[in-house]
Structures are given as C-alpha cells and as structure tokens.
C-alpha cells in the first residue's frame, strides 16, 4: 500500500513545464474543447506571485499546476553566509505574515546543536509572542479570504484588528514585521513596561470583533454558498501530500505539533485543537477563525503564568556580557565584540526541529561543521507542501471557485519560494 493510492485523482496535476504551457496557451484548436490558461502571477487573489496553470473545459478545471519561484531569492544559500546569530534576520523574511515562527524554529535548531537550556521566562515570552503572531496571521487570512470572495469590507476589518497586535509587536521588538526578536539563546529584549495592559487591551477588543466577523461572514448565506463543499480534500490525501496545519485539521484529523510533540511550554497551557469535518473551504476558514480564540486563551494563561527571571540564556557562549560590565572590563568588551563579529561556533552535527506555524509544520534542518556559520540550513516551509494539494482541491470544480480554494490554502509566497 502506498500513499499514492490515497489520491482520488492522480491526474489532477498538470505536468508540463512553464515553457510548454506558454506555447500551448498560445495555440487555439477549435476541435479541442480543453483550454490551457494561466492565472497570475499578478492576479490580486494569488497572494503575491503565485501562478496557476489550469486546463479548463468550459468553466470546469480539469488539471492544474501551481507555478512558483517568482519570489525565490536564495535565502537558504544566504543563510550559509550568515552566523548563527545573524540567521534569524534572514529566516524572518520567509513567512512575512508569521515571522516569529521561522525565527523560533531556527533558534530551536541552533540551541539543539549547542545543547543549551533556556530560562523559563524566555520560553514563555516566545510562546506568548508566537500565539499573538498566530492571531495576527489568521486575522490577515480572514482579511484576504474575505477580499478574495467579495466581502471587501472584511479586508479593512481584518487589517484593523491585525494592526492592534502589530502595534504591540512594534513596542516589544521595535518592528511591525521581520522582528529578529527570537534569537538563539533567548529573545532580544525583555517585555516593555505596561505590556500586561497592552495585551489585556487586545484581549478585550478582539472577542467582540470576532463576533462581528461571525455576523459578516460565518452565518451569511452568500458566504456559505461560496465556501461550503468547495475544494474538498480527504485526510488520506492531505497526509499523502504532506499537508499540515489547518488543511489537515479541516479534514477532521486533530494533528497539531503543539499537542502531539510539545515544544516550548505548550504542555503547561490549556487549549483545544480546532478541527473541521468536511475538509472544504468553509472548514478551513472556520478553523482559522476559531484558532484565534484558542490562541487568545493561551495568551491569557501566559499573562497569569509568566515567570520572572532572565529573558535570555546566561550561557556566556551565546549571550554577550551585560552592558554595565562592558563599561568596566576590557575582556567583556572583547567578548561582546567577538560574539557580534565572529559569532559563536556550534559543535558539528545535524538536527531537525519543527514547530506548528499558522500554516502547518514549520521545520528547520540545520547542519553545522563546527564553524560559526551553518554548513546547510533548510527550512521546511508548510506553504510549499500545502500548495501541492491545490490541483487535487480544484479538480472538477469551477474556475470561479479556484479563487476561493487558493485563498483557503493561505500560501505565503515568501516562504514557498524562499
């Protein structure tokens, strides 16, 4: 028995090179009712630069193929030229909607190689910031998903709510996006004064706004017509194609790395895994909406349980000496200088770490040859694997529904192309 047998339609994928597709698209054969068209890479609903080559018969999508690579900038190659401390600045630009998760998985990989333990507070800060980031990422999804399906007002509402969280991120990390906040050895800075009030404020605003979204979309007949039963995928198909996150959970399979293989302090907080039933576009929408509520529960518990202590490791190998020491000690100054110029060396070895990002399993495969830079750094991007489900979801559906399906995968092209 192979996974291939789990696919309902093995022919759903249009296997054709870009050049061939371009040539085929230019030829019009009156006897052939099938037609090849290109959607994107500049289509507004393609979330950046996704191009989908589709074979149509009338308005029905037969075979299709996501064409990617328009945003490829060789970030894995760049990573080989950056020290372990500089690494997060690079990886944070992959998934730009959820940058903290890529920083986290990279930092966890470096820490696994170095075999260093972190203080509790840094772990809890990481967890709280990541859950806030999950909320902002899902809010961005709600905004774009609404926009793609014609609920244009939703775009503004989603971005408004997301901005509340990004404002908090700016206060903590200095930047709205691409934070470089989670670093090997802990986080860049402690939480600022008044962080509790800021988070309580966010937790107060959001529930009523989410209820407004329910009124605007969840219970609305037009919304349901456009999403229910569209882009269906089964559990076996999702697993065979390596799809994780909300796509796998929408099929009713409760797989979440936070529960299955807990990292950080997820085994100490209480939350539910949201699953769907039918594996359709509506389920994927509803899962993300309700995951915002679950993330809020985790953040609430972080507020209560946030331990006191250091926000980064005390290990002098990865952490520069405190500012006061630099002023009085020459050695401390040299130490500080060395960490930020040469970087610290990681012992030879290889490791794979994975975290549950808003899009699924986000992994980092890191190889060290004993130097201060990785020998090889590979990011297992969830969107990259999830995009492979697209032809199977669109097969036999209408062209107009293709937009809904692409949107429901929530691909972030920065992480797909890296």
């Amino acid at each position, binding site marked *: 028995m192979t*996974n291939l047998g789990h696919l309902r339609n093995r022919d759903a994928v249009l296997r054709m090179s*870009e050049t061939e597709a371009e040539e085929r698209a230019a030829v019009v054969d009156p006897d052939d009712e099938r037609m090849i068209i290109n959607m994107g890479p500049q289509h507004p609903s393609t979330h950046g630069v996704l191009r989908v080559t589709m074979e149509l018969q009338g308005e029905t999508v037969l075979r299709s193929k996501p064409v990617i690579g328009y945003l490829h900038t*060789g970030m*894995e190659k760049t990573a080989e030229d950056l020290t372990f401390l500089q690494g997060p600045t690079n990886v944070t630009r992959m998934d730009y909607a959820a940058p903290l998760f890529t920083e986290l998985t990279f930092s966890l990989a470096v820490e696994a190689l170095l075999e260093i333990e972190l203080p509790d507070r840094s772990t809890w800060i990481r967890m709280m910031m990541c859950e806030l980031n999950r909320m902002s990422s899902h809010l961005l999804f709600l905004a774009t998903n609404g926009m793609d399906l014609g609920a244009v007002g939703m775009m503004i509402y989603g971005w408004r709510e997301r901005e509340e969280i990004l404002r908090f991120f700016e206060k903590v990390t200095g930047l709205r996006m691409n934070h470089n906040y989670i670093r090997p050895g802990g986080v860049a800075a402690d939480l600022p004064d008044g962080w509790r009030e800021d988070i309580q404020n966010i937790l107060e605003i959001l529930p009523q706004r989410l209820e407004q979204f329910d009124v605007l979309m969840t219970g609305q007949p037009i919304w349901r017509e456009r999403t229910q039963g569209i882009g269906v995928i089964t559990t076996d198909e999702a697993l065979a194609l390596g799809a994780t996150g909300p796509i796998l959970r929408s099929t009713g399979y409760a797989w979440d790395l936070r529960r299955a293989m807990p990292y950080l302090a997820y085994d100490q907080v209480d939350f539910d895994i949201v699953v769907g039933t039918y594996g359709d576009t509506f389920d994927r929408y509803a899962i993300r909406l309700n995951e915002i509520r679950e993330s809020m529960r985790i953040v609430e518990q972080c507020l209560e349980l946030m331990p006191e202590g250091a926000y980064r490791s005390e290990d002098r190998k990865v952490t520069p000496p405190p500012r006061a020491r630099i002023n009085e000690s020459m050695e401390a100054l040299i130490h500080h200088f060395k960490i930020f110029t040469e970087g610290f060396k990681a012992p030879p*070895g290889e490791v794979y770490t994975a975290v549950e990002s808003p899009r699924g399993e986000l992994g980092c*495969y890191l190889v060290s040859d004993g130097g201060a830079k990785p020998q090889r750094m590979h990011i*297992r991007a969830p969107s990259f694997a999830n995009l492979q489900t697209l032809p199977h979801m669109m097969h036999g559906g209408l062209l107009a529904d293709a937009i809904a399906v692409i949107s429901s995968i929530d691909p972030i092209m920065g992480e797909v192309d890296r």
Partner: protein
Amino acid sequence: MSESTSSLDETTELAESDEDPRDTVKKLHGVAVTDSKGQIVLHPAAEGYHDLIQLLVEEGYAVCVDLCGADHLGNATRVLPAAIEPERFELVVNLLDVRTPRRLRVRVQIAESDPSIPTISDIHPGAEAMERETNDMFGVCFEGHPDPTPILLPDGWEGHPLRKDFAMGTIPVQFKAVEGR
C-alpha cells in the same frame, strides 16, 4: 522529545535480534542507525533507499514531511557509521508517524560522479515538489520522477545554486530574452 527517545529504545531492541555480534553498528531493517541529538537517523545505501522508504510506510512512518539535499564539499567533521562511505551529496528525508507521534530521518549518500537516485514520489506524492527543488538546487536527478521540471529556478537556468562551488554574487543574473524586442 520523550516519544523519540522511547522509539529509539525499540530500535535498539529490534537491532539486537538480527545483529552480527562482531558488528558494533546498530541496525534497523539492515540499515545502519545513528542518534543525532536524540533523533533517529537511518543511513541506507542508494540501492536500498526506495525499498526502505516503502518498508517504513508499512511501519507507520507514512508522512514524508521534508526532503532536501545537502552538499558536504569540504566538510571534514561529518560523522557517519563505519559501513557508510561518505559522498559529496546527501539526500535528507524527514519522515513522520502521525499515529504514534515520532520522527525518523533518512540520510542517503549520493556520489558526485553520478548524482541520481530513485524517486519516492510513487510512495509519497508529497515528495514530488521537494524532489524538484532538490534537483534545482543540487542537480540530483530523481529517476522515474513524473515531472522533472524546474520548480524554483526559471526554465533553462544553468548551475545548481546550493552547491558549495556555486559562488554567491559572482555571476550576472540570468534573464530570458523577450521576443520581438
């Protein structure tokens, strides 16, 4: 982490049953096993790789979560089991068992002189895009792949960017000419 430790113990027990007493290398399905920071790593030969992946699916490792290449040119620090001959390229496959949450990694050595290996996309359709990416980046050819076209690089790109001898920033950016201009 606790799950992977417990499954490692199982591996050890399995290994003892069919192990040659003179052989100190731990084995699973006749393939050398190592431990990397508490994670299980299998080191099959290129010939046995496809069958091993099939065997592991039946054992529960039914999800191919990640597949990538690595270029170890100039890396003298790599530790491999005694029976495994180090080669320049490595194919790294991360497998996941979703029923009893555990992970396993397969590392295959690929010779520079003949960088080819059977595809596993007939077992794991999800590996298809990942194999195309590895082909782009390292020039590893996957025999029997249903769609061996470039995925991240443009059609007709020369070279394999993630190879260690592909220098950064020294070649001009390659663009396709636009016809009629």
